[in-house]
């Protein structure tokens, strides 16, 4: 079964699912489809996606838990999306469709919320992520030079991932550590008072592994 095919079917299920009596049945079917899709995705993307796959039978275990904890309340959408991003590293179309179905919201609504907030990624992230803070204090302390140096070295625009999928470079609005500007988060680790040279060194080391 090709990925396009399942996607179409997934949409079909959602259309049927909203407001019909057999919502439950289609829900289970959709879940199965989503699992299959996730499997295909994992095979396609190889290592990174495999790593992001949570333990358990369904890839949505964690999301389901959050859904149950929030009693499937539509107001909990942001929390559910947070939990989905934590599990998968980004929000794929299928994840959003799944969330939309479970919360009985139109997919456009979920997509609207996911794209409104900067924190949600709609594209998969690289193996390593480098987030450069560009808040006022970091800007005054020349964080812009760091971004420029990184963009040049790795031939990638800020907000994108290198072609080999090794490194994503992101820009943050403010990480609230302004006393130690400019600051960078490299794979979850905070580095304070950086220069373009020190940052290039560290990123090169990371990418080389």
């Amino acid at each position: 079964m090709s990925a396009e095919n399942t996607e179409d079917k997934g949409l079909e299920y959602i259309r049927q699912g909203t407001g019909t009596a057999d919502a439950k049945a289609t829900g289970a079917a959709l879940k199965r489809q989503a699992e299959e899709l996730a499997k295909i995705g994992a095979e396609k993307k190889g290592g990174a996606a495999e790593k992001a796959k949570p333990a358990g039978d369904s890839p949505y275990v964690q999301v389901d838990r959050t859904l149950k904890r929030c009693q499937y309340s539509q107001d909990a959408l942001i929390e559910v999306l947070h939990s989905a991003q934590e599990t998968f590293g980004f929000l794929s179309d299928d994840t959003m469709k799944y969330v939309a179905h479970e919360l009985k919201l139109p997919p456009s609504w979920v997509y609207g919320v996911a794209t409104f907030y900067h924190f949600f990624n709609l594209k998969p992230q690289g193996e390593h992520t480098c987030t450069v803070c560009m808040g006022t204090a970091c800007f005054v302390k020349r964080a812009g030079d760091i971004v420029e140096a990184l963009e040049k070295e790795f031939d990638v625009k800020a907000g994108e991932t290198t072609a080999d999928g090794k490194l994503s470079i992101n820009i943050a609005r403010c990480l609230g550590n302004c006393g130690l500007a400019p600051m960078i988060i490299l794979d979850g680790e905070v580095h304070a008072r950086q220069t373009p040279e020190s940052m290039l060194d560290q990123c090169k080391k990371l990418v080389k592994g």
Partner: protein
Amino acid sequence: MTREELQAMAQKEQEKRKAFSCRLLVCYSTPCISSGAEGVRKALVDAVKARNLDAEIDVTCTGCVGPCSRGPLVTVRRAGQEDVIYENVTPEFAVQILAKHALGNEVLTSNVLPKDLPFFAKQLKVVLANSASIDPESLESYVGAGGYTALLKVLEDMTPEQVVDEIKKSGLRGRGGGGFPTGLKWDLVRKAKGDKKYLVANGDEGDPGAYMDRTTMESDPFLVLEGMAIAAYAVGADQGFIYVRAEYPLAAERLRKAIKMAEKAEILGNHIFGSNFNFHIDIRFGAGAFVCGEETALLTSVMGRRGQPYPRPPFPANSGLWGCPTLINNVETFGNIAPIINRGGDWYAGIGTEKSKGTKIFALAGEINNTGLIEVPMGITLREVVFDIGGGIPKGAGFKAAQTGGPSGGCIPAAYLDTPIDYENLAALGSIMGSGGLVIMNDRSCMVDVARFFMDFCRDESCGKCVPCRVGTSQMLRILEKICNGSAVMDDLEKLQEMGKMVQDTSLCGLGFTSPNPVLSTLRYFREEYEAHIRERRCPVGVCQIKEVPLAELMKELPRRIREAAKS
């Protein structure tokens, strides 16, 4: 929990502290952790264990001490002696502190913060009073420092009206930026009709260059919870939300632990202190949208939707979350409540200026020697903050401007350094108090570039609901980019000013009203820099790369470019 149990808990904690011959307090807030406080803590804990000193020496992780640029910080507290603070502590040095100072009572000679440092002398701590000495993850620690006495006093001795009156008397104004009188807001919500009322603490500090709310939540989470509970009692709410940025995982974690501990001790939840007052608190995560700092946008975000503002009236005080009356205050505002109840509104009103009472937390950052978090009385001058507390500008460079209020504020030039800081004075200078970010710029910053930076931020963060903000910020950014690359003409300055005024007057929410402030204030105080970019085609400080020409001159420019291209 009852009054007796609370007192017993406080007494037990104080006795426990007294039993130690020496206490080592490790600053454990985000800035110090990112400079290596975890290694210092581990080294101290291991060394204490290895030497079997558990009963004599206490190692506690505390909230923020203040001078973040000097971290990691370790404070040595011995009974009957003044505190000694060590700066830039490494794990090895921490073991030396333990061996020599804690055990041998010999103050080390290096890395000691001078006692008479103006950084501390000019501060007055109300909200952050306990942050440097208590463990944010321990309810006992907070109660030992006098915590929850205010809530107990309110529940046992005061009516909701009396609480509101006390806050009105204190003159406290909202610390999120607008400066609306807190007592008045509480009164509006208290009088609003509705069976169900909500309360929201705004911890969505999207303002770049500011981290006061983060520190308040990280350093003293119980203070925020107590303030919220008092407010809930005063206005009659039974459900509260704390809206925390997703970028602040430590703050959220500490708040979550604090809520759990408070619920277990029955000072949050049903029948607080055995009374009929019920109050629950949930945490809601933001997801990185600056506009959610605006109250109506925040409310829609709490309800899980796109964080877009809606027109007021109806004000949230009448119709907020799910159409119910909702009180919404900043986290720092809630931090002021317990001290006001404990010490009285009159005491608080005695601090500050005529119209702006109390203290304000500022995050000092940028080109300044002592970056960090400070709490100062209102009415202090900018000069005192920058040159006494901040220790001046590094590397002998000159002071150029102080940026207050983030993308909603403005740049204040050297000529106004002696203005006392309060809501009215800052507004008169074309800036705002904002949440309290204070970024200092030296004479190597180009003010046009700074204005462009903020406009780019506002354009990106504009939610797109109203036209003036969505289109206006884009058009203003376009002109600023033209000025920065040299293709602007003098007419553009007039256009910029006119458009700024229009966006200010016609936008839907606070983001739009204030987004032209950085441009208008730099145009007002640094107009010659704009003119140098346009007339002389140069950036006075050499930040902008002026390579383009205005459209009208392109015909003259083209032959030159063609010649150059042919040559190369």
